[in-house]
């Protein structure tokens, strides 16, 4: 059966093959696939990230192969910050999404994030990433409830401040140190990132939420954004 797929990352395997970390549609999710390298430049261009592909997954267990590899449509031509963000998405998936963990929603989520990245200008990149991160956590079963605190005991109020504990959620706080304003949380719940302080809070909350999965080795793609500092 043919499936749509994206290559997230490749590494060489022997002289004429690669092992590609792929995201495949139709409940397959993230898998490692052996791909035999073709000699034509056309094949090398296909085996690049952000190229929509059609392929057939064969084999069982750890030895899965990609056959009948073809381009599905034109490659997402991303430049500059947009490209860095797309690479960040790839790194995030590879670091936190378990291999062979089937998912119906992961592929469309990734594809729509790429489509949005292609369309938006530099200033609107952040909301695309935050929406992707929030949806990714939801899909992993670790969704954050931005509208209630203290394990659902309280509703989040816009004038209060809240502390975020990864895996547990928000807790009402009587100080502001390392806490987030309630109005920002309510706007994040509505996926409204128009205000600067909401974008900043969302970024910090997402970093905290992913921290337990990422561990001590920070995401390399984050360092790409530091040239102007």
């Amino acid at each position: 059966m043919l499936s749509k797929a994206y290559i997230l990352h490749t590494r060489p395997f022997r002289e004429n093959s690669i092992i590609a970390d792929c995201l495949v549609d139709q409940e397959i999710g993230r898998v490692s696939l052996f791909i035999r390298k073709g000699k034509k430049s056309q094949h090398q261009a296909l085996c690049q990230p952000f190229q929509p592909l059609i392929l057939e997954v064969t084999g069982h267990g750890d030895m899965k192969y990609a056959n009948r590899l073809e381009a599905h449509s034109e490659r997402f031509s991303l430049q500059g910050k947009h490209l860095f963000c797309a690479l960040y998405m790839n790194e995030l998936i590879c670091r936190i999404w378990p291999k062979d963990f089937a998912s119906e929603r992961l592929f469309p989520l990734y594809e729509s994030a790429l489509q949005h990245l292609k369309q938006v200008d530099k200033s609107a990149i952040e909301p695309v990433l935050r929406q992707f991160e929030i949806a990714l956590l939801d899909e992993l079963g670790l969704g954050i409830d931005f509208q209630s605190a203290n394990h659902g005991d309280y509703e989040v109020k816009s004038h209060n401040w809240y502390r975020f504990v990864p895996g547990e959620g928000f807790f009402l706080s009587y100080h502001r140190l390392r806490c987030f304003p309630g109005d920002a949380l309510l706007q994040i719940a509505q996926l409204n990132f128009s205000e600067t302080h909401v974008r900043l809070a969302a970024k910090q909350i997402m970093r905290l939420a992913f921290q337990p999965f990422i561990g001590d080795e920070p995401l390399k793609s984050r360092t790409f954004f530091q040239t102007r500092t």
Partner: protein
Amino acid sequence: MKLTPLVTELIEALKCLPGVGPKSAQRMAFHLLEHDRYAGEKLGIVLQKAMEQVQHCQQCRTFSETDLCAICESPKRESDSLCIVESPADVVAIEQTGQFQGRYFVLLGRLSPLDGVGPADLGLDKLEAQLQLGQVKEVILATNPTVEGEATAHYIAELCEKHKIQATRIAHGVPVGGELEYVDGTTLTHALSGRTSILYS
């Protein structure tokens, strides 16, 4: 047949070369031992000397036996244009064209988050120090046309912008002797958007 420990070790050692598996390594080892002992000894001596003496040029990071490589030391090379490449092999390829008279900077890799390579691993602090000197007027980004190569080019272009230096990217196009039918869509798109007029003189 059980091989002697030294022959086994030689075969194992030869397997470190790219494209050399157990069969090829055994063939190479037997060839040297059976037919060409002199070449084998010479290979061993040269290999050891090269591993000890070949370092990286302190300015451009390509392979060099001295502090500065021949290109960096040459007064004939233009110091206002700097070509950024991923590997020493790319320097050789560009030098063979004879079209570039400037200097190089070799990254020895490309930005690849999933391989654990970030800006700090590519010697970009050295590059930035060179850009700060103010001699370089144009940086030619000749990283490979892969997603990682593009990301690297964009990252360095931002550094250049910070130092008000012009950054240019090498063109993408159809290979000579190639057939349009077999060229990938992305290359064709680049080739079409970068088309040039034919001038009749």
